């Protein structure tokens, strides 16, 4: 028995070491996966390693996103959206006579893997620009590396304000958390006429904490009352304790700014405990999986989002039908934003006088009135997109457009 504690400690140490080294086999998508360890890469390009830009006939765009892990559908949508934009640009003749290509690394939904993926994209693959990720916690880790290396990065859908505050090479094509929190606070107060709202946040996610923060402040400013704040950790599947505590406070709605993987289950357990009030959330809910995980329990709840696939505008319907044909399934907002982000990047590559990080950065910064699928993109001086949000109601396997809230 006495041997047990050192054994446990060494086991934990090994687990940690195991975690750090995993990127190599698990995280590649392209033919470079047979490369040796990345430590050797920068100095001597191996056969098959792309040489620095300028000498090649392609522009290489780096993508780091979560293709596995709890938020895998986000990453897959993001990759598809970028893929679609690149294919369209190549079909139209590429940029400055060169073809575009992307290199995708999986970050497994973990910040440390995301940071490593970016390092690899920069030092080994010499990408001109980085796209990703969805979850703000990952994008924060990536932004740190990209900013330090002077490589421009556009996050399609990370809404935490801190991401673009990392430096002047970091951009986004979506709105930011304060706005999403504000949208739902306004919706709860003015449309639902709710006075008492409880909050259930994911305390492992910068995104969820950010939304909760703003929602709480705005909702209180508008005269509402937050009856209680409970939290859970990503990956939990039992929320009955929190929901039982929330039930006691008799709220008229519950704000759950988490991700679809947890929200669906939360909805089921809330109904099971006899909590029938609507749940409110943010764009983290946006996944076809929400309907599967939430079943009938999630119906009648609301969330703020970047776009609605039901928007009748022909441009958007064309995107939806082409996406469906190519990848199957209705594109979610993450696919639309990734498509927009890639297009903003491609426009910038066209406008930039050369392929240095600085030139591309300046070109991205000038983006104004760019007609994206998820709203018109104009970047402000803080490198954030300013655009309206929509509120959607969850129905039976689909979402209904409810209203648009302007900044």
């Amino acid at each position, binding site marked *: *028995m*006495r*041997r*047990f*504690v050192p*054994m*446990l400690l*060494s*086991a934990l140490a*090994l*687990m940690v070491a*195991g975690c750090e080294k*995993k990127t190599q086999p*698990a995280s590649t998508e392209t033919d470079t996966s047979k490369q040796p360890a990345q430590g050797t890469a920068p100095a001597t390009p191996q056969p098959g390693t792309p040489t620095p830009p300028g000498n090649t006939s392609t522009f290489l765009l780096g993508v780091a996103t979560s*293709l*596995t*892990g*709890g938020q*895998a*559908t986000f990453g897959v949508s993001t990759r598809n959206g970028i893929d679609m934009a690149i294919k369209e640009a190549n079909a139209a003749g590429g940029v400055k006579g060169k073809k575009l290509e992307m290199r995708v690394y999986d970050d497994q939904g973990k910040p440390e893997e995301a940071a490593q993926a970016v390092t690899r994209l920069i030092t080994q693959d010499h990408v001109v620009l980085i796209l990703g990720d969805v979850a703000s916690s990952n994008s924060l880790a990536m932004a740190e590396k990209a900013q330090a290396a002077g490589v421009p990065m556009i996050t399609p859908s990370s809404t935490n304000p801190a991401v673009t505050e990392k430096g002047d090479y970091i951009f986004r094509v979506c709105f930011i958390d304060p706005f999403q929190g504000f949208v739902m606070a306004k919706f709860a107060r003015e449309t639902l006429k709710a006075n008492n709202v409880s909050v259930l946040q994911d*305390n492992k996610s910068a995104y969820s904490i950010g939304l909760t923060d703003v929602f709480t402040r705005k909702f209180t400013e508008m005269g509402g009352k937050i009856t209680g704040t*409970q*939290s*859970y*950790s990503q*990956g*939990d*599947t*039992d929320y*009955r*304790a*929190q929901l*039982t*505590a929330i*039930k*006691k406070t008799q709220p008229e709605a519950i704000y759950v700014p988490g991700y679809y*993987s*947890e929200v*669906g*289950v939360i909805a*089921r*357990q809330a109904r*099971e*405990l*006899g909590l029938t009030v609507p749940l409110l959330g943010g764009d983290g809910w946006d996944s076809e*999986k929400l309907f*599967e*995980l939430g*079943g009938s329990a999630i119906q009648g709840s609301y969330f703020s989002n970047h776009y609605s696939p039901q928007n009748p505008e022909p441009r958007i319907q064309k995107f939806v039908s082409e996406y469906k044909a190519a990848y199957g399934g209705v594109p979610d907002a993450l696919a639309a934003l990734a498509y927009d982000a890639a297009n903003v990047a491609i426009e910038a590559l066209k406008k930039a006088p050369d392929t240095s990080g600085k030139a591309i950065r300046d070109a991205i910064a000038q983006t104004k009135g760019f007609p994206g699928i998820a709203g018109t993109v104009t970047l402000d001086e803080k490198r954030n997109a300013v655009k309206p949000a929509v509120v959607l109601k969850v129905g039976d396997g689909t979402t209904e457009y409810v209203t648009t809230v302007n900044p």
Partner: protein
Amino acid sequence: MSQLLQHLINGLAAGTIYALVALGYTMVYGVLKLINFAHGDVMMVGVYMGYATAFALGRQTQKTFLGVVIIFLVAMGGCALMGFLIERFAYRPLREKPRLTSLITAIGISFALSYGFQLDIGFLPGAAPRAFPEIITPKEWLIIGDRDVVVWNWQVMSLMIAVGLMVGLQWLVFRTRFGRAMRAVSFDHRVAALMGIPTDRVIAGTFMIGSSLAAGAGLLYAIKDTSVSPLMGMYVGLKAFVAAVIGGIGHVPGAVVGALLLGMVEEFVVGYLASTWRDAVAFGILIIVLLFKPCGLFGRVAAEKV
């Protein structure tokens, strides 16, 4: 008051599932002095076996009594086979090597299962969480007051299945020849071998029983929390491991007590203190128990032979 009752029900439901998983840890530790870190992932594989069986049976059949029995039998049988294979090919060749070697192998198997199952090729399910089908049609079993406390039929059934499995295990360990052999191997496997006990077969049997209990626990977990994903095994496995250590690893009733304690503590901390404190308090209890009773609540102090 009604809130307290609801918390008790929730905590009991979580605790019994931890208990079933913790039993597997504790039994394997008992006979081999090995912490089988792959145990939680075996549970996860069992859940996916049940998931696949439920789909194969179709929407109608999976809800019948026979359907549920088939789902449990396939998952538990499949996991028993898997437990056997893991023991035969991963642990047995290393049995005479330093114990750390087996431990690392266990961690390796754990990662291979939980990350292998995130692949999206062939029968592997892919990373995204899935909704487990409702194999027991939910119905209120007991309603107190104006829906202040609701007890569902599946909560009662889960509890009955869990208790049934535990009673069965207790009978097996203390009332059968195999159980006596298991206890003998646990006491000293070399001496047991000298007495003519087929230790290899007993150890393989222990793995099979532990793994099928894990599959049963996994299915109850999936029925309770509806969402299944390849990483669920690591999470539940860690909690159950802590429960087994609190109870005194190697001690069968201790694992059950530790698990119920952990389930209740987590529930009450979230309900009455703050949800952020849940894991801190759970692991804090582990530390306190180990400080005062280094072998866990029920663990025996074994004299170190020099």
